């Protein structure tokens, strides 16, 4: 797989919803130095599933993880995908950036396309408060069942309370 093919496929499938596509490169190796390029691009929530489907049609697709941050007015999600595993040096790293306004924290789930996306989507739901439409299971995963705070949100005032509740929860369970 090549970065050009991946980028072409993203442009075709997402159209104008693909913003600021960029190829970043790094040089690796000593005896046989080579330049490894990776794709970074912005994308809209509506274009996410068609774009990921197009990548899955291109070559074996792997979702490494979704990372995210509180960017003030928005929540930023970064989908770290790889296209084309299984061949020597043939895998392309793709990062799709999605900005969601805090007033509308909803994004289509990738679970229908990549069932393994459930773990990382559940984590982003609990840590950042993003709702994934169509997710197969949206219970807390890493946080205790009764925690409703979102620890990675800068504007979440419940975090202090969450820490106190977690300590209490651990004490209660440690005694049983």
């Amino acid at each position, binding site marked *: 797989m090549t970065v050009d093919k991946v980028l072409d496929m993203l442009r075709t499938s997402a159209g104008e919803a693909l913003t600021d596509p960029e190829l*970043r490169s*790094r040089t*690796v*190796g*000593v*005896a*046989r130095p*080579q330049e*490894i390029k*990776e794709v*970074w691009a912005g994308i809209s929530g509506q274009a996410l599933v068609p774009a990921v489907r197009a990548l899955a049609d291109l070559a*074996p697709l*792997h*979702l*490494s*993880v979704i*990372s*995210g*941050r509180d960017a003030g007015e928005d929540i930023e999600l*970064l989908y*770290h995908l*790889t296209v*084309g*595993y*299984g*061949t*020597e*040096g*043939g*895998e392309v*790293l793709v*990062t799709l950036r999605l900005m969601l306004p805090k007033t509308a924290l909803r994004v289509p789930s990738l679970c229908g396309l*990549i*069932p*393994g*996306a*459930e*773990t*990382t989507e559940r984590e982003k739901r609990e840590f950042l408060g993003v709702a994934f439409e169509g997710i197969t299971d949206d219970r*807390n*995963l*890493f*946080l*205790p069942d009764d925690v409703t705070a979102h*620890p*990675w949100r800068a504007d979440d005032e419940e975090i202090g309370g969450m820490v106190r509740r977690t300590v209490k929860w651990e004490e209660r369970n440690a005694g049983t």
Partner: protein
Amino acid sequence: MQERKTTYEIPVGPIHPALKENIRFTFQVEGERIRSVDVKPGFVHRGIEYMGMRRNLIQVLYLSERICGICSISHPIVLTQAVEQAANIEVPPRAQYIRVIVSELERIHSHLLWAGVAAHELGFDTLLHLSWKVREKVMDILEELTGNRVDYALPIFGGVRRDIAAEQYPKLMEMIRYYRGLFEELSDTFLRDPSVEARTRDVGVLTPKEAHELCAVGPVARASGLRKDVRQDWPYLVYGDFDLTALTPEDHGVEVHGDVYDRIIVRLLEVAQSLDLVERCLREMPEGEITSFPKIPALLAYLKKAEGEGIGRHEAPRGEVIHYVRLEAGQEGPAVWKVKAPTYSNLMPWTPMFREQEIADIPIIAASIDPCMCCMDRVHVDRGDTREALDKQALLRLSWEKTRRVCG
């Protein structure tokens, strides 16, 4: 007449029956058969990323070693890659080789540790003792090279902190010869022993389709026939120089079953592969600098001005590790640090592995992905009005009894 309930719920954990790590499985069982399972991690969630975002990058580096004791070179290697990309830092060639050497030594000790655990779960403690006895050789070498058996404090942004001295080469070569001499014995004991085969063949199966769809990584994915290995697929450090191939059971000359037995095959083959890689690194490693930033204050000052994003990836013993880092000028620590460890990706593949298996197979299936969490020590069984508690020993006894039963 009242209809009899035939399915029962068995919570296993947060006290883990197989390893000394915390996780909760809730099994729906019918008789001895597991019909479904719900997996709940998070009992040792320490908020390490949250802590990391409140420390400077050098502190974060040592914090990253403590994500996992067994993978204590993998996380720093990935974090340094991510920061080096974000801050545009070059790594001298010799340092790249040293990172690979220690990574492969870590793979050898991790796979041998796992082999011992798996043998214990099957009630084959002679094999546990053999595996852990021979593992000491690589632990000694790691201590020789880094000063520690785990948590090596070796990588630093821009290189490594310690060189490998000329007088240490013969010790590494002696270790390689030692393991090569043992390989036949280990393969024979694990792969041609009828009791190991009886307990692991066609147990905990993960099909290639399931492994792909559920984003399985590491030996779990490869044992299901996927040739998926970051070292092969996405060149980094000096792995791209080596024409490395991801190993599956086919490389052992057998058909892929995707079961626990195949996970043993893959890990054993990878021990031999790691020995070859270490030998090759020793042969080809050039002389030269080991870091582009010998002075830590200069490094910290440079990092404080850096701005950008970076991703690091590495094939740890258990599979793909990935870190994402965002640096903002003026901040000593990362604005964002996201860590993904292999077990995160291998959580979902557990579900199909457990389906339609027996309760006595829970320990070996749970252990077969080589999970990485912490442990407690108890199992509760609810059967209608009666409640009994099975401790770890009781569940292990069930597993050992099954070994004796199936092996006559």
